[in-house]
Structure formats: structure tokens, C-alpha cells
């Protein structure tokens, strides 16, 4: 039971994906490498631009901050040196967001893992050069002290703290955003659990392409997704 993903819904963009988790739905599109404005041009690597559009209203300081965080993570994921003096543009349209009655910081942290997962899948769909695979996960410490992975909106209300973490396929921590009240030991436990989940998301499938036993709740959804995509792309060869 992983997130809900649909391939290439848009025709104008190089790569696109719709990504829906329990809390939000995001339509992501990636374009690149494209021509860059003179002022943003970097001599040795590609510039990365992220645009986030909220469900309602215009983008404001909140979206600017989310964009800077997502862009920082994507810079570690993309092969920027392959396309110097160009621009890689990622646009994220939020089509369903967690309820606005939640605290602002909670909403922000809740969106980040989905934004990152959606961006990565859109980049993969567009065939942009990537040097890492990244998976992100959201964990909440609910009022009872338990740790819940991919919490529902009910669990977010009154949660003690909320954590969004992203790991790459080498096990490096690419993102950690936490808000609430917690101590270092709690964070370290959460980081361990997040690493396990992300590792499981990218874990190899067994021979039949079936989900391996003993994995965490969402299983190797990322690996499955990319495998399905690759198989669909060469299906014509196997059919003939």
C-alpha cells in the first residue's frame, strides 16, 4: 500500500507525474535542460528552479521557502555537471493539501516528503540525468508517544512532533525537517526508522518483480514504480 502514482499525465512538459499520498496530491512536471536567463546562468553546472503552486491563492513566502528546500535537495540528486549553463525547471502544483486548520509548520513539513518524491519521479519520467535515487518519508510522533509513518490527517492533529526525512540510495541523509517538541534521542530513533523505510522503498525486488516479504508498510514502492516504467518502455521489444 504505497502512494498513488500516475505516469506522464501532461504532454507539454518533458516529464510529469501525479503523486498522491494520504495527506496530499501533487502534480509535478520537470523540464530540462532548457535555456537559462543570463542572470541565473552558472558556468559549471545547471541551474535548478523549483516552482510551487498552492491549491488556492497565489504563491507567497511560504512557497518560496518550500521551493528553496526542495531545490537544495534536488541539487544533490541531479547530475548538474552534465549540462552547464542550462536550467532544469521543476513545477509542483498542489492539487490537494492537508487541512488549513493545522498549524502552519505542520502543514509545511507534511508537504515536503510528497513534494520531493513527486519531483524525483517527474525528473525520472523526463529522462533527466540523475546521480542518486531519493525517497522521502513523513513520520509523526502522536500524542501517545508512538511513531506513525505516513500519518493520516487525524493523527496530525495534536501530534507532538512531525518529521520529514529523505535518504538517497547510498544511505545519505538529504533532508531532515522537524517541527514540534522532541529530544535528540527521539530524533535519532525516528531517523533510523526513516532510513529503513527509504531503504525499503528503493530495495531490489525479487526475480518475479514481486514485493519482498518482511518490508515495512509501504514496501519498495519507488523501485516498483521505476521498474514498471522501464518495463513499459521496452514492452514493444518483448511483444515482437
Amino acid at each position: 500500500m504505497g502512494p498513488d502514482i500516475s505516469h506522464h499525465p501532461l504532454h507539454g512538459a518533458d516529464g510529469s507525474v501525479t503523486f498522491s499520498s494520504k495527506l496530499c496530491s501533487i502534480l509535478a512536471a520537470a523540464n530540462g535542460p532548457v535555456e537559462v536567463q543570463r542572470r541565473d546562468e552558472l558556468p559549471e553546472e545547471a541551474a535548478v528552479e523549483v516552482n510551487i503552486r498552492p491549491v488556492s491563492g497565489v504563491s507567497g513566502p511560504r512557497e518560496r521557502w518550500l521551493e528553496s528546500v526542495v531545490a537544495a535537495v534536488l541539487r544533490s540528486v541531479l547530475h548538474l555537471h552534465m549540462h552547464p549553463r542550462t536550467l532544469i525547471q521543476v513545477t509542483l502544483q498542489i492539487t490537494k493539501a492537508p487541512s488549513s486548520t493545522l498549524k502552519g509548520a505542520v502543514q509545511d513539513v507534511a508537504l515536503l516528503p510528497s513534494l520531493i518524491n513527486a519531483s524525483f519521479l517527474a525528473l525520472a519520467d523526463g529522462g533527466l540525468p540523475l546521480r542518486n535515487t531519493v525517497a522521502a518519508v513523513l513520520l509523526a510522533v502522536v500524542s501517545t508517544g508512538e511513531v506513525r509513518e505516513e500519518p493520516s490527517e487525524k493523527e496530525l492533529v495534536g501530534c507532538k512532533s512531525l518529521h520529514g526525512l529523505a535518504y538517497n540510495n547510498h544511505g545519505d541523509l538529504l533532508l531532515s525537517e522537524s517541527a514540534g517538541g522532541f529530544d535528540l534521542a527521539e530524533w535519532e530513533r525516528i531517523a533510523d526508522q526513516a532510513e529503513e523505510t527509504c531503504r525499503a522503498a528503493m530495495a531490489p525486488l525479487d526475480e518475479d518483480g514481486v514485493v519482498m516479504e518482511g518490508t515495512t508498510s509501504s514496501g519498495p514502492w519507488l523501485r516498483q514504480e521505476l521498474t514498471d516504467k522501464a518495463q513499459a518502455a521496452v514492452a514493444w521489444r518483448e511483444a515482437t
Partner: protein
Amino acid sequence: MANGTAKLAGLVFSRETFAKLTPGPFLQAHLQQPEPIRPNGRSLDAFRTPTIHTGSLSHSNGSAVVRLGDTAVVCGVRAEILLASDIPHPPSEDTSEDDLVERLGLLVPNALSYRVLSLMHTSNLIKPGDLRIQYTEPATEDDLPDDGPKIVTKAFWALYIDVLCIALDGNPFDAAWAAVIAALKSTRLPRAWWDPDREMILCSPLANETHGLRLDDIPVASTFAVFSTGSALKQRSEAESWVLADPDGFEEDVCSETVTAVVRSDGGGVESITRLEKSGGDAIDKAAMGRCVHMAQQRWREWQGVLHGG
């Protein structure tokens, strides 16, 4: 001078030129010394000593100027009365106290920092009780004799917080957050009450009748930058990284990875983290994050002295 370059014939750079041409290798040359030192002369985990001046703005209810090295941030707090009847969309009965401040928009920042506002709400810094102007309605004949007096909230104080960065040499967030805290600490709100005859809020002009805001366990922010030599063009195992506390402008430009930890400690010595952020690169792992948090907690102790003393 920690200048690691060898003198090539006809190619001699001054320190400043080296820094301008290739900032990355310049910083790396410093950090790779047997005793790593940063170009600004600090050691890796040395923070800059902050200085705080409060009360410098005469028209605001509270103000503070925080200097962190060459970074300087000014914060002014103005209090205005927001009548309960003017609130377009009053929150429902079951909104908890903590959420009330956010829902009613009682803290109004200016553009500088969404992060600062977000942190203010997450840390439940201001208690709504301090901002309420309540009125005890006199008993009328209709009330049952056993009911206590009805207390109605007639209005709220809305705090307009203006944060302005007047000098930037890296790490504006820590300074801005400290400025906001210091300004709020120095804020005095006049005594206000609801006059039933004139149907409006009246304030007392007497200085000794003002009250401050209750700010218990103040959270303190510490930011770190991470300089790493890793890149897609090199082997992963060859990458080295260093964590620099309280980065200045030059270091911020060269580093792509940052960690911010906001910690607080309640009276009983229990330390907790309010906000932990890390984004940018892949050099920091769990152990490094732990070290950053410990450094942040030490920094908290340093700040307490400055905030309470100043």
C-alpha cells in the same frame, strides 16, 4: 597567514584575490590544516558573540537590535487593538489555546522571514492569555444566582512585528530570531479595559501600569553550514566535510548544505528541540546532526546569559 599556496614563478596571489577567484579551494586550504581554522579566524565550532540593545526605538512597544559579528538585525514590535467584533471569521469554541494565536493572526510579521513566523507559532512562544482584553460582565437579573460572572473577550492585542536586516554577513536567521525574542521580551503593553458606557477600549497611559509578555523557556536558534569537497566528478569515498558553526557571508556562499537547530530548555533542565532542519547536501549523517544539536544546546546557555542580562 594560513595561505596554503606554493609560490609559482610569476603567479603570486594575495589572500583576497585567492579568495575571490576560487572561494572553494581557499576555504578548503584553511580547513585542511592540521589545526583547522576558518578564514575569519574562528575555530570550527565557534559562534560569534552576540550583542543586544533593547528599547532603542521610541515609537514601538518593544524593540531590539542584535549584532552577530557583522550581521545586524533590528526588530520592532507594535501593539494594536483588534476588537473581537472586527474579527471576520471567529474561530470555533474548541480551538485550543495554542492555535488561537495563529488562527486570529495576532502576530503579524513583515516579509523578512516566513521561517521566523513559522517558528513563533510552533514554539507557542506567546500565550494568548497575555494578549486578551477581557471584560467581566456585571450580573444581570436574568442570570441564575449560582453562575459565576461571565467573562467576555472583547478584544485582543495584535502584535505587528517588523524585522529588518541592516547588515548581512551570513546567518541572518539566528540574529533575526534573537532580535524578535529580545524585542518581545522588552515589549510593554498598556493596561486596557472595556468601558461599557462608552462602548470602547480604553488604555492607561501610566508607565507603571504596563505589563510585559510572559516568555518562558525561550528557544534559541543555531545555524551551521557544511563545507564538503564531494562532487559528482569525484569518488564518494574521497569527499571530506567540515561543519562550520554560525557561518559568515563568505562561508555561506561556498557551502550548499545547512543545518538549523532550535532548542529550548525548561526550568527543570530538560532540553528539547523545537525545530530541526537540514537540507542541501549529503555530507551530514545522524552522528553529525547529534553533534550539531549538542552545540546548539551549549549555544542556548550562552544566549540565556545575553538575553537575560542585556
